[in-house]
Structure formats: C-alpha cells, structure tokens
C-alpha cells in the first residue's frame, strides 16, 4: 500500500536522503520532559494554592484587626497588611522550584537508563547534546519561568483578595496596598530568579552529570562526595576552603546579585537593591558558568557512552 508514493519519494540507493519535513528537536525534547515530570509545574502550583488558602483564612480577620487598630490610632503606614505574607509566599514558591529542580536533575539521565527507555529515545534522531541541553533547560529556564508566573499570579490574587475583603467591609484600602508596587516586585523577582539560576547552574549541571554516571543511588553519589571532601579537608588541614566555596555556591546568590546595604522596605527587597553590574563583575559567577559547561559536556559524553543499566 505504501509502495507507490514511497518509491517515487525515495532516491536511488546511496544518493543523499530527502530532507523530509522540518523538525524542532529541542522544543519537543523540552516538552517531553514536562510531559514526563508533571511535578515541574504541579508542585509550585500546589504550594501556591496552599499559600493562597492560608492567606485567605488569615485575611478574613483583617477588617477586625484594622478596625481595632484605627481605634487605637496607629500611623497608617504601619498598618497591616505588610509585605511579609508576599515575601513568605514568594520564598515558598522559589524554594519549591529549587527542590523540584534538584529532584528533577538527579533523575533526568538516570531513570531513562534504569527503565531502558533510553533505547527508545536513542532510536530517534535527537543528538545527545540536544537531549542533555533540553534537560538542563528545565532547572535553568523552564522552572524559573514557572516560578515567576506562579508567584506573580499568586501575589496578584492575594492583593485582589485583600482589596475585596477590605472594601466589602466598608474600610478604605490600606496605604500599603495602594502603594503596592506590583510591577517593581515583579522586576525584583525576575532579576532574582535569573541570577539564582545562573548562580546555581553548576549545581544543576553537577547533578545532571552524576545522574548520567551513577549506576545506582545518584542522590548519594551527588551529595556524599562533596561532603566527604569538605570533612577530609577539615581533618587533614583544619581548613574549610572547600566548605566555604560550597556554601557560597549554594547560598551566595543573594549577596552576589543584590546590594545588601541598600535601602530596604522592611521584609521586601527594594528595586534599588538590585545590582546587576556587581553581579556581572563577580568572578565566581563566570567560574561557575565555566564549570557548568564542563559538567554538561561530561553529561553529554556519558549519555553517549553509557548504555542502559
């Protein structure tokens, strides 16, 4: 049944093959990752839903608090709601994103070898480098975008909810809400997420490499050797250079990307605190990105040479 059209489309044996229809291997490789790991978006959404729910419960009491506070004449600027719930909400979603990224990377190149589905993926014309880059793009691009979208939507809903409750109780909008700079907060969040992803890139690349290398227990292989090295250094030389580097890599993103001395609006990071130039001048950023490339190249090589488990 297929012969008629096929033989006309087929070139003589040995001739160059027809190009066929256009393909987008990177795009579909990323989509395939999200199909497989639905927790990439479900986990941040679930946390956001939980935060929204708790916030709703808390906000229902708001009119009473405001009423009692205006009775005891406080300055309106310090009236609740403050930005604190917004920060807590953003931080919970960001931390969820990091956890999801770590969990994802540890399995990304390990599970396909364990369940032998790598034989299916490798039967298709997707180069290893595209497969690995698609996987790396999940913690470096996809998750930050999801975390940003979820956080901003959640905060908008929180603001809307507050306004609704306050207004339906006949109170005027609290000063905080009126001056609430959602776009500035979005900018700070976007900047923070980009710098965080760049700062953590070597960590994710390390996890991907271990996931491509380990024959079993990728989590232990990823975590124990660095800890063991730090301990060994401490015992042998009574120094903690490695530990310091590790600490800086895991938790140093904020200090590198933000000006901690700048004016801060209480619990919120102000837009004046973002310091992109300072961030770009940090040598550790560029060293980290170099290490990222090395780890990712190793992961590509390992995916190519290691078969199924």
């Amino acid at each position, binding site marked *: 049944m297929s012969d008629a059209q096929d033989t006309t489309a087929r070139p003589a044996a040995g001739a160059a093959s027809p190009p066929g229809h256009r*393909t987008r291997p990177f795009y579909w490789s990323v989509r395939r990752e999200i199909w497989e790991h639905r927790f990439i978006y479900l986990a941040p959404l679930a946390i956001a839903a939980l935060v929204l729910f708790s916030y709703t419960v808390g906000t229902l009491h708001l009119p009473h608090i405001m009423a009692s506070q205006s009775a005891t004449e406080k300055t309106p600027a310090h009236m609740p709601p403050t930005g604190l719930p917004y920060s807590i909400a953003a931080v919970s979603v960001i931390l969820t994103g990091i956890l999801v990224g770590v969990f994802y990377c540890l399995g990304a190149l390990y599970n396909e070898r364990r369940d032998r589905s790598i034989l299916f993926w490798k039967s298709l014309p997707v180069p290893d480098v595209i497969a690995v880059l698609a996987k790396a793009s999940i913690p470096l691009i996809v998750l930050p975008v999801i975390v940003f979208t979820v956080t901003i939507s959640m905060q908008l809903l929180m603001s809307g909810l507050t306004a609704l409750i306050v207004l339906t109780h006949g109170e005027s909008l609290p000063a905080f809400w009126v001056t609430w700079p959602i776009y500035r907060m979005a900018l700070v969040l976007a900047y923070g997420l980009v710098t965080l992803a760049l700062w953590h890139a070597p960590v994710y690349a390390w996890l991907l490499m271990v996931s491509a290398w380990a024959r079993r227990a990728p989590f232990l292989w990823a975590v124990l050797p660095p800890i063991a090295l730090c301990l060994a250094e401490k015992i042998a030389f009574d120094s903690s250079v490695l530990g310091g580097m590790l600490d800086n890599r895991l938790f140093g993103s904020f200090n590198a990307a933000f000006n901690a001395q700048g004016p801060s609006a209480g619990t919120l990071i102000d837009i004046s605190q973002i310091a992109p130039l300072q961030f770009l001048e940090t040598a550790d950023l560029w060293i980290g990105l170099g290490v990222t490339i090395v780890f990712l190249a190793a992961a590509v090589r390992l995916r190519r040479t290691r*078969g199924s488990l």
Partner: protein
Amino acid sequence: MPCIEARDLRRSFGKTVALDGVDLTVAEGRILGLIGPNGAGKSTALHAILGLLSFQGTLSVLGRNPWTERDRLMRDVCFIADVAVLPRWLRVAQALDYVAGIHPRFNRSKAEAFLARTTIKHHSRIRELSKGMITQLHLALVMAIDARLLVLDEPTLGLDILYRKQFYDSLLNDYFDGDRTIVITTHQVEEIQHILTDVMFIDRGRIVLASTMEDFETRYHEVTVAPDQVSAARAWRPLSERQVLGRSIMLFDHPDRAALARLGDIRTPGLADLFVALLGPGSTAQREHVK
C-alpha cells in the same frame, strides 16, 4: 553500496569478548536473521551497528561510521529493542506528537492509519497497554518512518503467537518494499524463517554461518532415513542425527539433493534444527565451526 559492512569488528566488556572479529556484509533490500544463543554477541553487534557502542575494526552502515556519525545516521535507521523500552508514562498521542516533532521522515497519517486498525486509544498511557498493544504502537511509529534500515532486537519477546504472527505479517505486507533492509534477532527462529532472505549464526562473538536462504535451501537437507538405509546414510556424514518415533532423522550439509532423497523422506530443515546441529551441545560440527 552494501547497507551494512563490517570488517574484523571487535568489542569486549572487561575480560568478556562480545565480538571477536566479525565480518559481515548485508546488501540493501535484504532481510537478515541474526541468530545465536544468549550472550553470543547479537545485541552487541546490533548496538555497534546502531552507534550505541564504540568498537574496534571497521564498520559502515549506509556509508557512515555509526559511532562518529550516529546523529545523522539515525534519520535513516529505525530500531525496536524489545517491548519494554517505550517509556511507560508516555501517552499514545504524545508519542505521535513527539516523533512527528523530531523525525523528519515521520508520516503521521500513516501511523494514525495503522493505529486505527488496532484497539489502542490515543489518550492511553503506555503503562495501560498490554504487551501486544505496545508492540503494535511501536510498530506503528516505526512503519510510519521512511527509513532505509530497520533493526529489530527480539521485537516479539513475551508476545503470544497471534501478536507475533501479526507483527511479522504487518512488517512484510505494510513495510518491506524491497529497498529497505531489515535485520532481526529472535529466539523464535522457526517463525521468521519464511520471511528471511539471509541468515547468520553467531556464537561467542564469531559468525558461524552466513548464507542466503536460497543457498541454505540447496545446501542443507534433512532426511527421515528409511530403516534399511541408516548405515548408508551415515556414510554421507550427517551433521547431526536424532531419533524421532524410532526413525533416524539426519541433517546433511550436501548439495546433492537427488542422492539424499534416495535415503528416505527429504525436506529443507528448520533453521532451529541446523542451529542445534551446528551449535548445540555435543554436535560434531561444533568442534569444526567454533574454535
């Protein structure tokens, strides 16, 4: 240009020699059965052909080195390992979307038409399908790809006879068109004998027998020897002799069919019988062929 050409192909894993100097040539448009016991090196050979393993020696598939030009080669090569390799979380519709999105030669409507003849639903996940249905799906994906070489590594493992028959029928009727080349390994030798054009026995990393099916049929004969002819038949030096229901059945490697026919009832042997005769325990030929 041959589809696959290997010269002195070698590969070992640690101290285990999986391929010990394999030479093979497969012309385009052939259907080759690669047959061997477990651990003979079949999968290693296929994985080398597919660029999944590095190797020593020279190997050319469709004119390319599969290890260094794997990415390009895979546009022209399809591969079914066994039924277990399709990712269990994948939905049928996603499998179609994905392959259509990444494979330049995938004809989606062809795959859909094939699936329409099965009971597979688009929204099902692979883990919800039976083994037979997973094979049908994989076959639907592969048959919709206009490839030049199809490699099947135990494609029907664990399937019942109906699915196995259907699998090979589809392969022959809907896929094979005389230009494509197919390489199959399987333990169910008898079931594929009639579709093969070439056969190769591999044992302990070496090719023990390589023959076209036509040569196989003129060269090997199985005779149910008449009781009064047994000693005469033994003089023809059979590869093997076994007793079935009190009759001697002997397998000969000899082109003179007419002469052998006088010894009893003659027929073309099954590949499995020849396989056992050549490689089975205690076979006389084993010492000659495998050293």
